[in-house]
């Protein structure tokens, strides 16, 4: 079980990583922009601290935090965002598809709600091969109205699969407020399928960890899926295009109020200052090194743009012959 310092290290790493990634979006080093996870770090940190290295996760378009918390290499993750050959996916996935199977990450997914069914299938397959691994699947409040996610809740409950459904309720599906998109309750959806569901403070890493740990223990013991609704707030943009477009769907006052409880500060208060300073320094060093790694990494060779399209190496016809 992770201690307070380890949780602090994770939320701080995600925060600083995202801040660095945003700078790299602004300077043009990261194409296409990102969906910053800033403000929601406690969820990835708490849930992943409850998992073993051989457990798996599936993630979302806002997935950097999950990838880092599950233990992937920040340098290779940053290189993936920058589209370098040394990135986790060799520059083929980018922010919305970062995957690291060696660290138990089946990948971020750019279609809202899409990865839960993949997680359920993986959990079924793992269990069938005699492993006691658990799969945690992250999604936002926007996903709870996607049919495939609701279908998956039924399937996972029916087959008592070791899946932890983690809803990161940040109050907004892009610009749409949860109360304008969601009838009933979020946990009520899970409960309708007989899945135990809890709503927890998603700003406090230790609260998330405690809730996740009991859900994981239950799933690992063969007692089936669990559902966690983690209440959180997205401090930054839905996507970095907001910096240019400046859509008005929440006021500055509201954002300021939402940022009062900061997961990094909440966890920082639990770590002795000297240790905290050491962790902070270590993270700065790690991220500087990651940045140097990106700068030293080559862009992928355009001749290989169709590499990996087929697992058996089939070469697709070129677009101009």
């Amino acid at each position: 079980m992770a201690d307070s310092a380890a949780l602090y290290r994770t939320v701080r790493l995600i925060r600083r990583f995202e801040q660095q990634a945003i700078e790299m979006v602004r300077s043009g080093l990261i194409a296409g922009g990102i969906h910053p996870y800033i403000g929601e770090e406690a969820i990835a940190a708490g849930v992943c601290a409850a998992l073993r290295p051989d457990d798996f996760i599936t993630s979302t378009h806002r997935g950097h935090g999950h990838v880092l918390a599950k233990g992937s290499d920040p340098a290779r993750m940053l290189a993936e965002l920058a589209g370098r050959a040394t990135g986790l996916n060799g520059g083929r996935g980018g922010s919305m598809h970062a995957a690291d199977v060696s660290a138990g990450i089946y990948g971020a997914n750019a279609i809202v709600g899409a990865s839960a069914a993949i997680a359920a299938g993986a959990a079924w397959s793992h269990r069938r091969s005699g492993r006691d691994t658990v799969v945690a699947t992250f999604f936002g409040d926007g996903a709870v109205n996607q049919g495939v996610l609701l279908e998956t809740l039924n399937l996972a409950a029916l087959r008592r699969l070791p899946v932890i459904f983690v809803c990161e309720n940040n109050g907004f599906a892009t610009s749409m407020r949860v109360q304008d998109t969601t009838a009933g309750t979020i946990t009520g959806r899970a409960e309708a399928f007989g899945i135990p569901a809890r709503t927890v403070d998603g700003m406090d890493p230790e609260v998330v960890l405690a809730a996740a740990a009991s859900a994981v223990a239950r799933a690992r013991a063969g007692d089936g899926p669990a559902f966690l609704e983690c209440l959180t707030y997205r401090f930054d943009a839905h996507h970095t295009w907001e910096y240019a477009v400046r859509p008005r769907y929440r006021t500055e006052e509201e954002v300021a109020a939402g940022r009062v409880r900061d997961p990094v500060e909440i966890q920082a208060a639990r770590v002795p200052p000297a240790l905290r300073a050491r962790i902070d320094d270590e993270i700065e060093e790690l991220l500087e090194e990651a940045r140097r790694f990106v700068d030293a990494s080559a862009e992928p060779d355009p001749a290989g743009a169709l590499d990996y399209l087929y697992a058996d190496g089939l070469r697709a016809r070129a677009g101009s012959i």
Partner: protein
Amino acid sequence: MPLLSYLRALNRALAAEMERDPAVCVFGEDIGIAVSNVTTGLLKRFGPDRVIDMPISEQAFTSFATGAAMSGARPVVEFQIPALLFLVFEQIANQAHKFSLMTGGQVKIPVTYLLPNSGSRVGWAGQHSDHPYSLFAHVGVKTVVPATPADAYGLLVSAIRDDDPVIVFGPAGAAARREDVDFGTLAPVPLGVARVHRPGTDVTVVAVGHLVHDALAVADELAGAISVEVFDPRTLYPFDWTALAESLERTGRLVVIDDSNRSCGIGGEILATAAEEMHLIAPPKRVTRPDGAVLPFARELDLALQPTRGQLRAAIEAVAKGR
């Protein structure tokens, strides 16, 4: 020799692969009682851990197969109705198909999608009569449409052993086919390799799936007047362009009969590729469903929108005269 039916061939392929490889499992609706006659006996033989009756949640169980495949399973997903593919286009085209490239080769997705009654069964109307194989060839999912029982066996075996998603269309129009086969000779048929059912010197007819049998019948009718080569691609993607080029070297004339809607159907791709790259001495023709076809219910109306032997014969005669 014993007679092997088309659906029985699919059933034998499933059983043989499940016997050979414990990673192979089958997901679908009503497969325990084998409503579409291809999963017969599998539940009893391999048990409910490998033959899984799913709730009517096609989107979830299609991506469930993707997740299972990432983690070592080799699922076969059966769909009773071809139009269900429209529900799961996201799960196949946008998820399963893209994972290998998007992850830089970290995962492979060895899933087979099996459509044992694709196309028209006459009288099943607008939402049960589609034949959307061209859509999958377009997005780059490996796509096979066997015409005969032995090919159905061999191509399904190869699909299951393939490390990428493969979709297998078993046209309803071929389901009643039976073939004299020594069961001991049933063997895998490699993906991407065409078959010439009947050699000819005047016109190459590329026929897809069940239409191979119509093409053979028309070739018989025309024998003596026009020598028709009946070319069965068997796999639509990847297409055996080399074999087609060889056939057209001999004939220089091309007709395609394809149960797709006309716009952007595989027939259009075959004509385009032949026109760009191959030996043609006369303008080619294709016989297809009309643009945007929705098959109406009444038998006469349903049949009116499917490619016919009469249309094929007229097309062959026109191309044979063309210059």
